[in-house]
């Protein structure tokens, strides 16, 4: 093996070590094309996410009742973007024209036992100074963390109530978010029913990586052996890979 080949292989090994060290510092690891919006802020983080966890933020917004007596369409977000709800024009009962309606979003630490539902997100309570108009729907969107099983539905309960109910899942949300239409504001979280039998992909990634390693070893070994049996040719930094030159 020439010196330049040794240098580039050493550089590749060093790069792999640098990458693994850097990716290890950000649980669960490297994300690219569809990156999570940022480290999830937990009210009560699972063990994997305790280190460096920041508390979730609340949010509020206001809307003025327009001259036509309706509240225009809008969206209220938490300041960290982890929870939001949207409404269309006339989505809320409007007080007199010109008055201001306030919408609030608040992460809560204590909430009724969700029973058979395993929650994958914080629980947020949404309130407004005027109720949702009859027959109108509010779009509830919750973000979930990278590295947790994707929730299958949004669940909710009325403030002061104890019973959680399934709100739904529109199924067309952006990655790391889940949305559902609600008929009223209340408290919401996203999760999966333990008894639903829904499969979680928790085991898929380790299996995929194991399969890739086995594939590389099984398919690479014959290529390396063929390469070793060949008489040495002139080599340089840009030569084909040992396993590839026989393809």
């Amino acid at each position, binding site marked *: 093996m020439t010196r330049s080949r040794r240098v580039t292989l050493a550089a590749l090994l060093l790069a792999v070590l640098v990458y693994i060290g850097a990716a*290890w510092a950000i649980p669960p690891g490297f994300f690219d094309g569809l990156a999570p919006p940022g480290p999830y802020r937990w009210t009560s983080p699972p063990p994997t996410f305790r280190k460096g966890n920041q508390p979730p933020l609340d949010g509020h917004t206001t809307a003025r009742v327009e001259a036509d007596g309706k509240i225009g369409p809008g969206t209220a977000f938490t300041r960290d973007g982890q929870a939001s709800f949207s409404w269309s024009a006339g989505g809320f009962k409007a007080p007199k024209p010109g008055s201001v309606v306030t919408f609030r979003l608040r992460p809560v630490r204590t909430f009724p036992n969700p029973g058979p539902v395993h929650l994958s997100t914080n629980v947020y309570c949404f309130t407004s100074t005027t109720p949702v108009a009859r027959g109108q729907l509010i779009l509830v969107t919750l973000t979930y963390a990278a*590295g947790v099983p994707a929730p299958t539905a949004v669940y909710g309960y009325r403030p002061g109530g104890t019973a959680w109910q399934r709100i739904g899942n529109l199924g067309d949300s952006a990655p790391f978010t889940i949305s559902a239409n609600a008929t009223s504001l209340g408290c919401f979280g996203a999760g999966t029913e333990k008894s639903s039998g829904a499969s979680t992909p928790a085991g898929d990634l*380790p299996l995929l990586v194991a399969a890739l390693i086995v594939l590389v070893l099984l398919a690479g070994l014959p290529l390396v052996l063929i390469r070793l049996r060949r008489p040495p040719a002139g080599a340089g930094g840009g030569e084909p890979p040992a396993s590839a030159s026989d393809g």
Partner: protein
Amino acid sequence: MGAGDYRVHAVVAAIPLKPRIRVACLTVLGIGIEFARVVAARDPALALPALLGGGLALCLLAVGTPPERLGLGRDRLPGRLLGGAALAAVLLLPAAVRWHGGPELGTGWAVAAAAVSIGEEVAFRGALFAAIEEAAGGPAAVVGSTLAWTVAHVLSHPPSFLPAVIGAGLVLGVWRWRFRDLIGPILAHVVADLAL
């Protein structure tokens, strides 16, 4: 010195600048396209088209560069594919060890994720890498393409993720330099993005 001599001298002097100008143009365009698709994707209605359009636009940066210079030659294909599998295993390893599940992508989002992965590889480790290598050599191409790729992720990733982006850029860039291959990095990038 006659007018003809001056013209010849000016043309010759410009030749060494050409690769540098190409590097500058590709860097600005690549980062600009990435920033534009990230900003556009903040509107939920535009998220999917932004990803698909961004991936396509990034691929267009390689127009005019021969496939062999991009690392997309058809020779050594089994080795390139196997290399892609090995690189994918490396990229996924830290997450696989601590995996508890992740988002389930619909077909549209999966196609969009693959489009961005392919676009980023073709633009940054394909066209830009080739241009920097021509201007300043292989090691500079590894470092330069990694830096540009990392800057391109500043808007889409929180700062704590950027060291891992640098690390992944170095792994894929050194592979590209060492084996003159972009198929492996493309395969690894697509598999990693879809799996995560």
